[in-house]
């Protein structure tokens, strides 16, 4: 398995890099680049969320809250306080990490439905605060965000963003793959398999769950901040419950406990509503239908089902 695993790892990374490098050949205009950038940003969130849901087996229905806090935190520090964008992004992400750590300890002692409800509540609270603090956030109307400046150059235009997000996506995949195959990553999967057995071999389950909860919140906040700078405008909708559900749907569709699955899930479910523009008003219906069909026809998700089909006997 070591050699096979390593090839699956490196092979997957290489394949993703090739796709990112060659995709521009198929991107006819800025609109397509725009969709590709949004895919990449959502994929980063999903990779983190999949560490929590897919590997550690802990649900979160509030990750859009972390995404929104990262977005608004970065935007507010830059627009209202004049902080440099990178410093704002780092501070907002660190702030979200701290928040996730503080709420994570009590929340992650809960299991199943209770954890789902607690994270749901957390997300709702964040969304309401963002909506109500209109002095800072612009309220329900949203707020505009200055562009991301890198070393004195403003990063503007879909094409430039495409390459930055592409590189960051590869980085996120690499980090997640590394974690999953470390002792800590195995501990997460063990918790999912049998929490009692994991504890009995020395794994502090609450500590491990808090660690992955914070990490997934960091991925979400970082991508949220980038999304704010990229779009130039944000609204509270990005932080709300429906967005949390979209993110979970991407992870479940792509495949629980599959990092590449998270990327595929984000790609398909970010692109689909854009392509089916007529369905725009029914976006949530599409997500609901995808979730139901996935559960019924391929409960393991897209990528694991595909892998099992083409590599029978081999298990990831």
């Amino acid at each position, binding site marked *: *398995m*070591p050699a096979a695993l390593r090839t699956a790892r490196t092979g997957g990374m290489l394949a993703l890099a090739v796709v990112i490098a060659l995709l521009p050949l198929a991107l006819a205009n800025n609109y397509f680049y725009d969709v590709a950038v949004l895919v990449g940003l959502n994929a980063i969130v999903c990779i983190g969320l999949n560490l929590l849901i897919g590997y550690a087996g802990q649900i979160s229905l509030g990750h859009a809250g972390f995404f929104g806090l990262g977005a608004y935190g970065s935007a507010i520090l830059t627009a209202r306080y004049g902080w440099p964008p990178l410093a704002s992004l780092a501070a907002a992400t660190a702030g979200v990490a701290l928040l996730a750590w503080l709420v994570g300890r009590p929340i992650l002692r809960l299991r199943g439905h209770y954890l789902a409800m607690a994270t749901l509540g957390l997300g709702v609270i964040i969304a309401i605060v963002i909506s109500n603090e209109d002095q800072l956030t612009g309220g329900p109307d949203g707020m505009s965000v200055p562009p991301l400046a890198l070393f004195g150059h403003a990063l503007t235009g879909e094409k430039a963003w495409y390459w930055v997000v592409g590189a960051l996506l590869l980085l996120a995949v690499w*980090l997640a793959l*590394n*974690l999953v*195959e*470390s*002792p*800590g*990553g*195995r*501990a997460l*999967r*063990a918790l*999912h*398999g*049998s929490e*009692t*057995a*994991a*504890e*009995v*071999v*020395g*794994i*502090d*389950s609450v500590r491990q769950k808090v*660690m992955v909860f914070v*990490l997934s919140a960091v991925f979400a906040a970082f991508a949220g901040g980038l999304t704010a700078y990229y779009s130039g405008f944000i609204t509270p909708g990005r932080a709300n419950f429906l967005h949390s559900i979209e993110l979970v749907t991407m992870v479940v569709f792509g495949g629980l*406990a599959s990092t590449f699955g998270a990327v595929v899930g984000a790609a398909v479910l970010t692109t689909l509503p854009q392509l089916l523009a007529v369905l725009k008003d029914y976006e949530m219906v599409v997500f609901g239908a995808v979730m139901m069909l996935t559960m019924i026809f391929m409960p393991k998700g897209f990528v694991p089902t595909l892998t099992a089909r083409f590599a029978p006997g081999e*298990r990831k």
Partner: protein
Amino acid sequence: MSLLRVEALSKEFGGVHAVQALQFEIPAQGVYSIIGPNGAGKTTLLNLLTGVYRPSAGRIWFDDKELTGRAPHHYAAAGVGRTFQNLQIFFNMSALENVMVGRYLHERCGLVAALLRFPSLARAERACRAEALQLLEFVGLAGYARAASDSMPYGALKRLEIARALAARPRLLLLDEPAAGLNPTETQEIVRLIERLAARGITTVLVEHNMKLVMGVSDHVLVLDYGRKLAEGSAESVRRDPKVIEAYLGSEAQAHA
């Protein structure tokens, strides 16, 4: 000197006294067996001795360090390992990975080292894999290294749990009915495995209700009945104890007659 010491240990489940005022010491050498009829409180006792259950009353010392009320991972860190009567396998992982998880206490590293896969970690991972393979071989599962654990037969999973527990290098290993559900050949293999554990210097606590198995390998036997200590001593003295014969061996003997 005793490795584990228990004082006035009790566990109650809403009126059911599963374990009542138990007092005993497990010496630092040999095979210590805990026997008793079904429902005697053996599994509850193991759950207490590994922190899975909190005692309703009483205290637990391991190696003269009090562990009463601590979480299971503290017991593991102190050197207590165990297997489960009802299998607790990580079915989402391969056999080899199950054993590698057992190495957690000795392999764990910082988050940054894991995310960036420091070269030192990559080396430690290779060593961990090699050691896990050796342990699979030790319990007779070399052929299953790559197998998905959810495709393995029951008897193999019983031994996989032992390999996983050994991976943590415990000083005290608690086996909850390791031969339950096994055929005679497999049971013999488990007995030989327990003897090899003893030869390795690992103190083993064997929970069983298979009397023949217990009498053959035990240095010391504790008999439970309705959560209380019924008798304690060498296998020979316990076997002759009239109370034990009445409560337990008697019914066995009748069943076998």
